C-alpha cells in the first residue's frame, strides 16, 4: 500500500526518487503473552521538499512510527517487519554505530514538549554545538558559528545572547525554536516533527508553522509531520496518512482527504474537529440575572528578592477584571498561557487571595477567607487532566460521592442513589461505579470529574481547559455533554480555554484576555463574528483552519514574545478602559 498507487498522488510531484521510503513497517511490543503489534504494515514514500502528515488520535501508532524511523524505540519495542529506506539504505538493518551517524545528521527529529526536551543544566549553545560536532568534526569556533547561524535561521531574537542562556531562561516558543535549530543545523534530508506545536500557544504555533514551511522551501527538507490536529494537517501537508489503532485507515493528497474522505473513520474524525464559524451565529437569548459577578478582580503575586526578602516585583496575574456570568450560560475566557484565565478559576474556587469583589450565587466575597465551604458548594471546578484529578486509590463512585460526604449531605444509601443518577447523566453506567480510575479512558475519566462537579448541584461549573487533553472525537462528545447539562440542569459554565475553535463551538459569551486584563468581551457573535480588538483578530487569524484550500492572510513574520506580567512594585500596569461599541460589545481602548 504505497502512496504511489493512491489516486492522484504523485501527479504533482517531480518523479524524483524518494528520500525516505517506508515499506510495510510493523512495530511490536514484547509482552508476556508474546509480541503485540503497535503499528502494522505502514508504507509511504517521501520526496525532497515534501510534507507528509501522519494524523491520528492517541494510540494510533503515529509516534511509534516516527521513533521506529529514528531507531529510538524503547527497549521492549522493535520493528518486526518491513524496511525504512533512506536513499536506498535500510535503516532497520543498520548497526547502532552507523545508525547513530545518520541520526541527527540526515534524519532529524523535533518533539512535542519544548519545556522538557532540552537539557536543563547545559546552555543552549553547548547543546547546539554538541549536535554539530557529533557529526562534523570541526574547530570549536567554527561549530559555534554554525550554531549561531542555525539560531538565526529559526528567527530567534538576540541569537548571540541565546547561545549563553539556559533553557529555563527561554519561553516555550523560544525553546521550540532552539529544538528546531538543533534539528536543522546539519541540514537533514528528512525532518520528523512529532506534534511540534501541540504544546504551544496559538500565535506561537502560527509562527512555528510558518517557520517550518519556510525551512522546507529554503532547504528542501522533506518533513514527516506527526499530529492529531487536522487544522495543522490542512495547512502544512502535501499528503496525509490517517492512522487508527496502528493501521493505516486512508492515505492520499491532502485536498482529497479533506474534500472526499473515502473511509468512515476519516469522515468522523474530520466531523469532530471544532471549526471556527461552523456554528451559526444565533442571536443571544435575553440576558438573565448573573450567577457570578467579578468586579475589579485583581490578583497579584509578590516576588521577594534581595537580601532582606523585600518585595521588589509583582506578578500582575489578573488586573481589574469585571464581568458577569449569567444563569444558564456558558461564558468563555480565552487567551494564551500566562494571560490570567486560570488564576480567575482558582480565585473563584477560593484557592488564591484576591482584591476586588466576587458575587457568587448571592454571596458577596471580598477576600479569600470569604470563600467558605458553603460558598464553594455553588462553584465547582473541572480541571484539565482527569488522570491527575482523580485519586488513583479511590473507587470512582466514592470520588463522585466525596463532595456530598464533605458537605454532610444525605445518608449512605441516598448518596449511592445520587451517584448512580449522576453516572447515568454523564453517560457512564451504574456497573462502573465500583471501579478505579485507571480502568477508564481519558474521556470517561473527564466524565467522572464532571459528575463529581455536579454532585453538589452547583450554580456554576468552572471548566479550566477541561477538554484540552482529549482526542478530538472524545472532545466533541464531552462538549456535547456540557451543552446538554447547561440545557437540562440550567447550570452556568465558566469555560476557560486556549482553543478558539472549541470556544466558538460552545460559548454563549466570550471574553478575550491578555496580560491579566480583558481586551474584548461580548456575545460569541460579537467577538468572533465582528472582532474589533487587534489582539482578538490576531488570535482568530492564528488558528489553523482544517481546510486545505483556506489561505491565511499574509502577515509580517515576527518572533515577538508575549510581554511579561512581572513588573516593578512601583510600576503597576496601565488599566485598559472597556468601551461599548454597541449592544454590550466591549472593546479595550488600544494602548
Amino acid at each position, binding site marked *: 500500500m504505497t502512496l504511489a498507487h493512491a489516486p492522484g498522488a504523485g501527479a504533482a510531484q517531480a518523479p524524483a526518487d524518494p528520500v525516505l521510503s517506508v515499506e510495510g513497517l510493523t512495530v511490536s511490543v514484547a509482552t508476556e503473552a508474546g509480541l503485540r503489534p503497535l503499528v502494522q504494515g505502514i508504507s509511504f514514500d517521501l520526496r525532497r521538499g515534501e510534507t507528509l502528515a501522519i494524523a491520528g488520535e492517541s494510540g494510533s501508532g503515529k509516534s511509534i512510527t516516527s521513533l521506529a524511523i529514528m531507531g529510538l524505540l524503547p527497549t521492549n519495542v522493535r520493528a518486526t517487519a518491513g524496511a525504512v529506506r533512506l536513499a536506498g539504505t535500510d535503516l532497520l538493518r543498520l548497526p547502532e554505530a552507523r545508525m547513530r551517524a545518520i541520526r541527527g545528521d540526515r534524519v532529524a527529529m523535533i518533539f512535542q514538549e519544548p519545556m522538557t526536551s532540552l537539557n536543563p543544566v547545559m546552555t543552549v549553545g553547548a547543546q547546539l554545538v*554538541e549536535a554539530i560536532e557529533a557529526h562534523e568534526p570541526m574547530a570549536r569556533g567554527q561549530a559555534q558559528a554554525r550554531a549561531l547561524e542555525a539560531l538565526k535561521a529559526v528567527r530567534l531574537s538576540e541569537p548571540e545572547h541565546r547561545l549563553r542562556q539556559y533553557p529555563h531562561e527561554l519561553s516555550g516558543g523560544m525553546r521550540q525554536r532552539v529544538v528546531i535549530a538543533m534539528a536543522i543545523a546539519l541540514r537533514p534530508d528528512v525532518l520528523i516533527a512529532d506534534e511540534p506545536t501541540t504544546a504551544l500557544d496559538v500565535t506561537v504555533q502560527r509562527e512555528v508553522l510558518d517557520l517550518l514551511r519556510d525551512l522546507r522551501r529554503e532547504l528542501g527538507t522533506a518533513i514527516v509531520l506527526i499530529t492529531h490536529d487536522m487544522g495543522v494537517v490542512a495547512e502544512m501537508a502535501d499528503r496525509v496518512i490517517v492512522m487508527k489503532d496502528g493501521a493505516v485507515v486512508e492515505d492520499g493528497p491532502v485536498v482529497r482527504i479533506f474534500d472526499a474522505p473515502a473511509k468512515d473513520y476519516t469522515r468522523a474524525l474530520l466531523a469532530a474537529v471544532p471549526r471556527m464559524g461552523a456554528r451559526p451565529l444565533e442571536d443571544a437569548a435575553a440576558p438573565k440575572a448573573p450567577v457570578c459577578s467579578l468586579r475589579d478582580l485583581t490578583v497579584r503575586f509578590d516576588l521577594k528578592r534581595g537580601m532582606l526578602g523585600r518585595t521588589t516585583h509583582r506578578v500582575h496575574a489578573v488586573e481589574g477584571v469585571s464581568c458577569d456570568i449569567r444563569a444558564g450560560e456558558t461564558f468563555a475566557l480565552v487567551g494564551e498561557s500566562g494571560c490570567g484565565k486560570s488564576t480567575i478559576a482558582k480565585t473563584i474556587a477560593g484557592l488564591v487571595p484576591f482584591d476586588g469583589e466576587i458575587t457568587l450565587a448571592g454571596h458577596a466575597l471580598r477576600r479569600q477567607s470569604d470563600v467558605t465551604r458553603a460558598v464553594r458548594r455553588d462553584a465547582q471546578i473541572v480541571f484539565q487532566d482527569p488522570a491527575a484529578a482523580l485519586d488513583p486509590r479511590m473507587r470512582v463512585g466514592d470520588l463522585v460521592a466525596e463532595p456530598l460526604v464533605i458537605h454532610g449531605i444525605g445518608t449512605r444509601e441516598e448518596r449511592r442513589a445520587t451517584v448512580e443518577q449522576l453516572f447515568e447523566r454523564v453517560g457512564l453506567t451504574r456497573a462502573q461505579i465500583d471501579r478505579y480510575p485507571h480502568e477508564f479512558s481519558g474521556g470517561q475519566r473527564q466524565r467522572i470529574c464532571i459528575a463529581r462537579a455536579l454532585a453538589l448541584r452547583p450554580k456554576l461549573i468552572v471548566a479550566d481547559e477541561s477538554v484540552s487533553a482529549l482526542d478530538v472525537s472524545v472532545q466533541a462528545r464531552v462538549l456535547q455533554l456540557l451543552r446538554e447539562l447547561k440545557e437540562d440542569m440550567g447550570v452556568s459554565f465558566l469555560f476557560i480555554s486556549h482553543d478558539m475553535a472549541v470556544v466558538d463551538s460552545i460559548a454563549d459569551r466570550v471574553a478575550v484576555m491578555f496580560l491579566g486584563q480583558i481586551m474584548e468581551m461580548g456575545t460569541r457573535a460579537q467577538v468572533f463574528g465582528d472582532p474589533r480588538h487587534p489582539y482578538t483578530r490576531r488570535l482568530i487569524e492564528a488558528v489553523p483552519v482544517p481546510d486545505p484550500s483556506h489561505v491565511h492572510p499574509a502577515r509580517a513574520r515576527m518572533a515577538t514574545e508575549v510581554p511579561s506580567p512581572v513588573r516593578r512594585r512601583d510600576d503597576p500596569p496601565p488599566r485598559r478602559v472597556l468601551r461599548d461599541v454597541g449592544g454590550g460589545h466591549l472593546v479595550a481602548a488600544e494602548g
Partner: protein
Amino acid sequence: MAGYLLRRLVQSVLILLGVTLVTFFLLYVLPADPVRQIAGRSATAETVESIRRQLGLDQPFWVQYGRYLWNLLHLDLGRSYLQRSNVSELIWARLPPTLLLMAGAIVCELILGLTMGIVAALRRGTATDNGLMIASFVGVSAPQFVVGLLMLYLFGVRLHWLPISGYGTFAHLVLPSLTLGILGAGWYSRMMRSSMVEVMRQDFIRTARAKGLARRRVILRHALPNAILPIIAMIGIDIGIFMGGIVVVESVFGWPGIGQLAWQAIQRVDIPIIMGVTLVSAVAIVLGNLLADLVTPLIDPRIRLR
C-alpha cells in the same frame, strides 16, 4: 550571595546553640554522676562534695549552662575532668585522623555507590541490576561493626593484604574507610539508580539521542549531571550519619580519632569532652550541608541562592 551566606551563618549559629542546649540538658539529667567517676569508689562524701563544688556541678542548670556558653564565646571548650588537659587541644589533636577517615569514606561511597547505581540503572531489570541491588541492600542493612570485623578478618587476618589496625599509611586507611563508607554506598547506589532511571526517561535524553550522540556522551554529559543533583544534598546529611559510625569504626580499627575520644568520654562521663565532640560534629554537619547547598547551583543553573 553575601546576603545568603550571612543568613545561613546566623541560622548555623542558632542551630549550634540549640545543639549545645539539648546536649547539656541531656547530660544534666543523666543519672550517671561524673564526680563519682573522678573521685573513685572509695572517696568520702566530703571529697565528693568538694570536687562537685570545684567543678561548679552543684549550681543550678541555667547557671552551669550560662557559664558554659560564656566560656564557649571565648573559644574555651573547658578542661577534661579526667585527662588533665584542654578539650580543644584533645579534639584538635584527634581531628586530622577523623577528617581523613571521613574523606576516605566519602570517596568510597561515591565511587562504589555511584558506579553501582549507574550500572544498575542502565541495565535495569537484568541479573546485573538485581545482583547490585542485593549487594546494596546488604550494605545498607549490615551493622557496621559486623562489616568491619568481617573485612578485618578477610583482608587482614586471612589474606594479609592490609594492616588490621593502626594509623599512618594509606594501607591503614583502606579498611576503615570502606567499613564506614559501605552503608552510604548502599544508600547512594539505590538513590543513584532511581534518579538515573528517572532521568533516562526524560525528553531531553531522547533529544540527545536523536542528535546522534554516542551513548557514552548521552550518559556522562546529559544524564549524570541531572541525576547526581539529589545525591549532593545527601552528602551533606551523610556527615551526620558518619559521626555515629565513626565511634564504632574507630574502635574496631584502633583509629586515633574523635570517635575513640568520644567513646572513652562517654564511658567515663567526661562531660566537657562529650560537649566538645558533639559541638564539633554539629559544626561538621552544618558545614557539610552548607557546602552541598553551595555546590548544587554550580551544576544546576535553575537553582539560585537567595
